């Protein structure tokens, strides 16, 4: 191997090392990439500038120190983060002692490992594409490193390894579809609980949701089986806040953990079945359409305040099948103790609101009248919906209702519920999401953090809990068109042409559809989807047994097809009937103990046959001459071809020999 070739191979390998380490950079302590960079530069210096290779004792000492370094950084060497750090460190040190192709192969195998580990950190579509590219590059480098001849140009090397990967696709698909799946999420290994907590929080005080208002981050996706409700009906319930301290709404622990009693719910006859795919948020919340009535599986439970919750926190993307009834009625009768709970306010604070409540109560015949009166007040007075409300002081409800009159959904919900309670009507605040953007490409509704919303529920005698969204009174577009609709047109679209917006919107839809497919069909392909797939093809009965048999058949079949495709390039083309006839003739002679020798021309073969079997001399000589004429001469005489084929087929050496005997 020449020096230039060795350097070229080293270049490939260092490129792969850099590409495979990149996904881990964010998770590694800074000294690890630094060590890797130093080792890469040193090794390149050895190759091009004649730097000395570090002696063996130094390499061993370095390895020991680095091992201790990883142990000191993480306190353990188990787990995804210490494991990938250790891999990178090993790779850096191994690079220092590479001499032969074998050493490069070891490095490239570590690189493959890092690619896998990269998937454990992040399974999103862009990373998937990137890591696939790295795997391709690694395969090309492996091919270059183990090549006995000079390395190929980069383009050819990538084309060759690309063909290898394409050839591996059938095997990959079979393994993906049929390899037994662990019932739990394998990908969840790396995620630490609470690492993904963007989104709602368990309590609400003025200003909380504002931070979410501008976040385009995905909260969850939903797909309806049948009819899709109108956007104004899409109230996704997440949690219910029932305690108020004058400023902050909270969840009272014991009450919210009581399970739902079946008699609490009465059907409204508008059942809707759908699927939600929830992005990891580290909590137990499930986003269900109001009012959820059933959930598939035993992973989701329903609490007395109607919200759904998971048993385990949602630390990985999770798909759930739910049923909601848009017209269901909850708690037709509410025990007096509970009514009291939902009317409770702090002893002091917000006096003007309390006064307002008494005033409304006095001017209305019943509870419904009070509600209407307050909503009319929101409509009639100059209340504004804005993302940038002024800060509020110690009596936030009073200040909002009587002074600033500018706020976000949480201000309205908080104020509304407070006044209702002050007027003696049981009321609570519900946090969740409202609306969502339908993506026609994937068939899913996409609900983002900017769709986060707060509304209220009031309890009326004989009607149960009724949803009242005060924002709908102030900014009806917020409910029908989403947040962007509620803001003034100039605020959202400043400096952007309508067409550019549409393009952006379309691109975002395509991207979202691709992500949806990736998340639900690739990452989300689990034990249950595997069973469903097999059942669709009529495989029932013992799952594991079916899998093993199908896996074996599938792998054998795909390898056989691959072998046939490869062999087709190696085998000579045998389609020409002339050649076929001659080969059959040779086979017949071979059975008589006269096989053609390798490198023997037809004429020479005929001469040899003539010498050992004089009675066949005339036939074989004539046929060999005709065959060579047909094969090698220009413009054979008309009829020669057909004549030869039939004569060769009729040629029977054994009949002649028997006759002679």
């Amino acid at each position, binding site marked *: 191997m020449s020096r230039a070739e060795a350097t070229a191979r080293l270049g490939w390998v260092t490129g792969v090392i850099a590409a495979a380490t990149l996904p881990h950079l964010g998770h590694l302590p800074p000294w690890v990439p630094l060590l890797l960079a130093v080792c890469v530069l040193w090794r390149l210096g050895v190759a091009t500038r004649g730097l000395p290779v570090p002696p063996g004792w130094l390499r061993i000492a370095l390895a020991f120190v680095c091992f201790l370094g990883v142990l000191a950084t993480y306190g353990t060497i188990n787990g995804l983060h210490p494991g990938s750090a250790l891999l990178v460190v090993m790779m850096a040190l191994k690079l220092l002692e590479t001499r032969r192709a074998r050493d490069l192969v070891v490095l490239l195998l570590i690189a493959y490992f890092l690619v896998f580990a990269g998937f454990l950190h992040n399974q999103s579509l862009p990373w998937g594409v990137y890591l696939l590219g790295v795997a391709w590059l690694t395969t090309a480098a492996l091919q270059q490193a183990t090549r006995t001849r000079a390395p190929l140009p980069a383009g050819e090397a990538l084309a060759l390894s690309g063909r290898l990967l394409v050839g591996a696709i059938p095997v990959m698909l079979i393994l993906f579809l049929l390899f037994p799946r662990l019932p739990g999420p394998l990908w969840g290994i790396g995620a630490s609980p609470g690492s993904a907590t963007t989104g709602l929080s368990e309590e609400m005080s003025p200003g909380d949701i504002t931070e979410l208002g501008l976040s385009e981050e995905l909260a969850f996706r939903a797909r309806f089986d049948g009819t899709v409700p109108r956007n104004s009906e899409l109230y996704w319930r997440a949690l219910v806040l029932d305690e108020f301290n004058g400023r902050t709404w909270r969840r009272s622990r014991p009450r919210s953990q009581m399970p739902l009693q079946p008699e609490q719910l009465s059907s409204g006859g508008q059942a809707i079945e759908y699927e939600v795919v929830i992005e990891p948020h580290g909590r137990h919340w499930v986003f269900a359409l109001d009012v959820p009535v059933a959930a598939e599986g035993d992973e989701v439970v329903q609490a007395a305040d109607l919200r759904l919750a998971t048993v385990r926190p949602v630390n990985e993307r999770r798909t759930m099948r739910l049923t909601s009834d848009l017209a269901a009625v909850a708690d037709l009768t509410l025990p007096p103790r509970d009514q009291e709970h939902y009317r409770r306010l702090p002893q002091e604070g917000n006096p003007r609101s309390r006064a307002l409540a008494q005033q409304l109560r006095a001017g209305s015949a019943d509870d419904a009248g009070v509600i209407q009166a307050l909503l009319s007040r929101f409509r009639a007075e100059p209340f504004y919906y804005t993302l940038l409300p002024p800060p509020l002081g110690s009596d936030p409800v009073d200040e909002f209702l009587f002074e600033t009159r500018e706020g976000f959904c949480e201000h309205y919900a908080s104020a509304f519920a407070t006044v209702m309670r002050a007027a003696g009507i049981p009321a609570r605040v519900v946090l969740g999401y409202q609306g969502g953007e339908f993506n026609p490409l994937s068939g899913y509704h996409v609900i983002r953090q900017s769709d986060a919303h707060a509304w209220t529920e009031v309890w009326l005698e004989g009607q149960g809990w009724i949803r009242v969204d005060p924002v709908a009174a102030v900014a009806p577009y917020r409910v029908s068109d989403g947040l962007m609709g509620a803001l003034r047109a100039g605020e959202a679209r400043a400096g952007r042409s309508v067409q550019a917006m549409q393009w952006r919107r379309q691109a975002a839809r395509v991207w979202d559809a691709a992500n949806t497919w990736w998340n639900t069909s690739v990452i989300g392909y689990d034990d249950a989807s595997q069973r469903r797939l097999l059942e669709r093809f009529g495989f029932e009965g013992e799952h594991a047994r079916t899998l093993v048999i199908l896996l074996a058949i599938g792998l054998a079949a795909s390898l056989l097809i691959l072998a046939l495709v490869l062999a087709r390039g190696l085998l*000579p083309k045998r389609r020409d009937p002339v050649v076929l006839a001659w080969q059959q003739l040779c086979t017949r002679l071979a059975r008589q103990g006269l096989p053609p*020798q*390798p*490198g*023997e*021309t*037809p*004429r*020479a073969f005929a001469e040899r046959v003539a010498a050992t079997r004089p009675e066949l001399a005339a036939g074989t000589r004539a046929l060999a001459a005709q065959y*060579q*004429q047909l*094969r*090698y*001469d*220009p*413009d054979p005489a008309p009829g020669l071809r057909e004549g030869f084929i039939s004569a060769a087929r009729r040629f029977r050496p054994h009949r002649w020999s028997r006759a002679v005997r």
Partner: protein
Amino acid sequence: MSGKLAAAPVTGADAARARADHALTAAPILEALDGIILGKSRELRLALACLLARGHLLIEDLPGVGKTTLAHALARVLGLGFQRIQFTSDLLPADILGVSVYHPERRGFEFQPGPIFAQLVLADEINRATPKTQSALLEAMEEQQVTADGVTHPLPEPFFVVATRNPTEQTGTFALPESQLDRFLMQIRLGYPDPAQERALLTGTDRRSLINQQPATIDPEGLRALQQAVPAVHVSEALLDYLQALIAHSRDSRDYVAGLSPRGGLGLLRAAQAWALLHGHAGVHPDDLQAVLPAVVSHRLVARAGTGEVDPGRALIEAVPVP
């Protein structure tokens, strides 16, 4: 496919007639040669095929087996101008190529062509000369011209070099490097005659006088027509497959130090075409290829040490099946 190789488009009937003509033209040449050099019919045909394929011939053998006689006989039979250059260790390039001489009466230099300016040059014992002189000859062979003092002098047409070399075991020789050997289309050995031919040689007329009596059997036009007919001999796909399989095996096999060069492969095809022409075949047959193959590859393929040291051409033929 054959259109690429054909010199001119001809119809089937024309081609058949031309083929028969060529074979008829070649027959008396071979007959005359056989009359002078006894029992070497195969080698004579190879030498003629080499000439028709516009290649150069290298004869490697011991002194006195008839190398010079063969070259001389070829020249006489084909009616070619003949020059013999005896290579010695003190031979200089100018001794071969020629030299510019000052003519006082004309007040200028004039190129005095060397012995290489002949249609058939016998370079005898080429491995006795220094590499510098050897390469002067080989360059002239390759380029078909001689450049002296900035003036280019074309060599005569046809131009055919028969070089002889003693087996390198003999003392006082300079081995030809492989790159130079590749410029010879064929290398043949003559070998000792068999007893009957030896007896005929001992009792018959002196060969030299036979050669001197021999009239030319072909005119320069006829010879040129034969040479031009060689690349037009039909080559089928099947034969090209076979040729490429042979070349590929020579490159992939571990039995050889290096495989056949593209020039070697093309030379093999031309030689086989010339052989087919001499034998009146309409297309090149595997037999034609196999007939010339040992001579074409024997100086090109070097068997790797420890592989039995068999004739590399024979081994190659036996290793590759005829498709």
